[in-house]
């Protein structure tokens, strides 16, 4: 039953990656930029939730909602102040700015909350681990909820993007920025909305991740951010189902290689798989083919 337990914790970790990867993939799809600060938004979400539940004594779920609001606002602010002035100037300039924003968030968190790791209170404080199959299979409520949350978020987001007016506008902007503008779509608003959704989801991911691995530091978001970014590329950056598949596969690979091969080498194996996938399918599993034009 060790296999099943590992599979479930892999899927749970993968779900966290998938939720973070959504932010990367949507932002990349709409503005063709690698938002390296996304991982640090997760960390801010974790801290906000931590502050409200620990110091203000609020219910974990309410502080999660507050963290979502805070991160949404933060995401919009970052886009407005740092990225919008550089729109259309080439991806490298925006990339370095995103790195600047990432440094800024990490160091601001360091100044405000200090470098000491905080123990994050789980969302499921009172709920005990569920034992199934005669005690052989143990399922933590956090893992199950994370997987469930991931599925719900995916369904809502897919419906939002394909059915609603705002979602269609987002797709139009990511397809062709200029043409969308000519059709009367407010490009700025669409991009802001994308950042808002991505950052709100980052807060959810942050709280879920910290519930499962309860250590919160200013650098907490960095590595999951990179991994989720890898997941987004794995699945084909710009594609929402791709982010989900990429995240889940990556999470499972990571947990399995930790369990069966080596803890130290798990990251190397994850990144090695990414390289192999990109060699076989250069635009990721579900990515669109890039056509060359002269």
């Amino acid at each position, binding site marked *: 039953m060790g296999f099943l337990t590992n599979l479930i914790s892999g899927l749970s970790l993968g779900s966290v990656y998938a939720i973070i990867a959504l932010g990367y993939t949507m932002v990349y799809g709409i503005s063709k930029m690698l938002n390296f600060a996304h991982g640090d938004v997760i960390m801010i979400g974790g801290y906000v939730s931590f502050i409200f539940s620990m110091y203000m004594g609020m219910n974990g779920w309410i502080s999660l909602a507050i963290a979502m609001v805070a991160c949404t606002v933060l995401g919009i602010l970052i886009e407005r102040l740092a990225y919008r002035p550089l729109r259309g100037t080439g991806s490298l300039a925006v990339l370095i700015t995103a790195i600047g*924003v990432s440094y800024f968030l990490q160091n601001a968190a360091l100044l405000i909350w200090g470098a000491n790791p905080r123990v994050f209170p789980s969302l499921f404080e009172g709920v005990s681990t569920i034992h199934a199959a005669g005690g052989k299979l143990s399922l933590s409520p956090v893992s199950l909820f994370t997987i469930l949350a991931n599925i719900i978020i995916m369904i809502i987001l897919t419906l939002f993007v394909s059915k609603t007016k705002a979602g269609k506008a987002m797709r139009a902007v990511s397809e062709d920025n200029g043409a969308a503008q000519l059709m009367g779509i407010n490009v700025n608003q669409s991009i802001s909305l994308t950042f808002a959704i991505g950052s709100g989801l980052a807060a959810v991911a942050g709280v879920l991740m910290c519930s499962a691995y309860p250590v919160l530091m200013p650098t907490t978001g960095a590595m999951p951010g990179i991994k989720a970014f890898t997941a987004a590329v794995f699945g084909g950056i710009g594609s929402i189902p791709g982010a989900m598949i990429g995240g889940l596969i990556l999470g499972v690979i990571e947990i399995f290689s930790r369990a069966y091969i080596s803890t130290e080498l798990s990251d190397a194996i994850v990144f090695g798989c990414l390289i192999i996938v990109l060699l076989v399918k250069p635009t990721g599993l579900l990515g669109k083919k*890039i056509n060359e034009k002269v």
Partner: protein
Amino acid sequence: MAERILKNISTRGLKNAVKGNEYRKEALISYGILIIGYIVLQLGASVGLIGKHLQGQFVPICVYVALAISLNLVVGISGELSLGHAGFMAVGAFTGIIVMRVLEPHLGIMPIRLIIALIFAAIMAAIAGFIIGVPILSLRGDYLAIVTLAFGEIVRNFMNVLYFALDENDHLKFAFNHTIDGITNDQRILTGAIGATGVTKAATFTGAMLLTAFTLFVVLNLKNSKQGRAIMAIRDNRIAGESIGLDVRKYKLMAFVVSAALAGMAGCMFGQNYSTLAPVKFNFNTSILILVFVVLGGIGNIWGGMIAAALLTILPEAFRQFADYRMLTYAIVLILVMIGTYNPTFKARINSVIDKIKPKKKKDSGKKNKKSKSGKEVA
């Protein structure tokens, strides 16, 4: 269509021929910066103007300048975004440390040992660059960037499980993913995630400066050669380059491998500057740091990257008293400089100001650099 491509190429060729003078100018400025920097720092240190703490930063400054030059070969001249430069640096650093320790009983003269270590570091890093370069250079843009990022992380991860030691008989012992038994602490060379310990420092300021000069020499000469022009032609228009028979993969690989080898040498020098060195030093942040130098200095502008590397290594050290706020300030300055140099409206405003100050000067490159400098001074 074909006519358009040919026209495109022929004008580009002409421009390159005319640019011969610009290459000379670039070389003059770059070497000038290096020599002046060396003299100023040496004098400052001997007169006592520069404190002990900053003197300790001399070798890292040279190393980062060399790294900025070598990364510029990939990012600026070859036009591919690389996020794993620290990986090559790590390969070079640890190769260098091992070679130095193995040679220690046999070869007494430190500089010669260092040169041999540098050569080995360059070879190992070049091999790493080749292994990763061959498959990935068919990828485009952001996908290539993410694979270089992945490569950097893989290298660091592998360094975390490498164990090397030299036993009593000076035999090199190696273990993967487990510690070596029956070895005293002094005999260990690499100990997994702890990294290298007990390194006899071999790096000197003059040595590091010579290495930087060598890096500069290689990159400038490559840029100004037939191969360099081919690399830049492919960067400017890949399809046009292919159509006149340039082997795209070969030239991209050439830039990538040379850059990796140079980064390996810089890494080797870096490793010889500390008595202990952990693999975590070569994480993603270090790759990004080098990229920041290149972009701030102006992509493809070699001496711009050199100045950015030197300033951005010195400034955070010089402002140590504001310890808590300096990285925050660094982040804000980085964002502001990027917006200041790349935002179109901001750029136009600065340009109009400059035009007012000196109306009859050549416009092209001088302006760009002035701007980034003024941006830094304001900060």
